């Protein structure tokens, strides 16, 4: 698998690590939201927004839209620029 880092270009997956669902970008501002934030995840068959870290590269956190069925990578952006 390869990911195209917005800063480094196309790279082998070994340079990255996977963090999970990109809902982590939306940290709640009130205590009530934290249960869902920490524990509740969708598990879609299809396009999915997720976070990857380019640890062996630029150190950037990436928001990756990936089809979980085909593994096709639909888009990659720096997480700090792609916050909803």
């Amino acid at each position, binding site marked *: 698998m390869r990911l195209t880092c917005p800063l480094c270009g196309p790279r082998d997956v070994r340079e990255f690590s996977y963090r999970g669902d990109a809902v982590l970008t939306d940290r709640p501002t009130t205590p009530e939201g934290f249960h869902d934030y920490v524990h509740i995840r969708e598990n879609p068959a299809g396009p999915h927004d997720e976070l990857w870290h380019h640890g062996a590269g*630029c150190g950037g956190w990436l928001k990756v839209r990936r089809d979980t069925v085909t593994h096709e990578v639909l888009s990659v952006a*720096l997480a700090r620029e792609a916050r909803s």
Partner: protein
Amino acid sequence: MADILRAQSPFSGRLPVTAGPFKAVEVIPGSVMSVAPYRGQQAAVSKALSHHGLRFPDAGEAVEAAHAAALWTGLDECFVISDAPLPLNLDGIAAVTDQTDGWGWLRLTGAGWQEVMARLCPVDPALMVPGRALRSEVGHMMAIVYGVTDGVIVCVMRSFAGTMAHDISVALTSVAAQKEME
């Protein structure tokens, strides 16, 4: 207080290594400073660096001047390497950290050095050309790779220098032996 502490370079006693056309030698920059511009300050940093013929590099870029270079090393960060410490005058516009002792630098040369890098680094050696600086892993170690006219400079954190010297030695010996077989 009579002692003057004796300095030791990261690859001291471990390089150079040679085989066939290949040679890996240690490079010891006089000064390496990490420069990380604060929010919105990249232009100001570039302006300050222009006194040394440099500017803040774009992603993947190496900006070179006569006695210094600014190597892109990651998100919002570059290394300014120079023969001697430079007055950078970046107070308040960038985080500056001395990295002179933090990294070991080696220069790999010899016709076909790309074959050696192909054993060590997942990035296409065709991208390792002058004017480019990239982050990747080399032999399972986080590295900075920087193209020069006759080869490539590989930089890893100092504590990895022993493994780096070993890995580059094995790789260039192996490629040289395979060239012999052809």
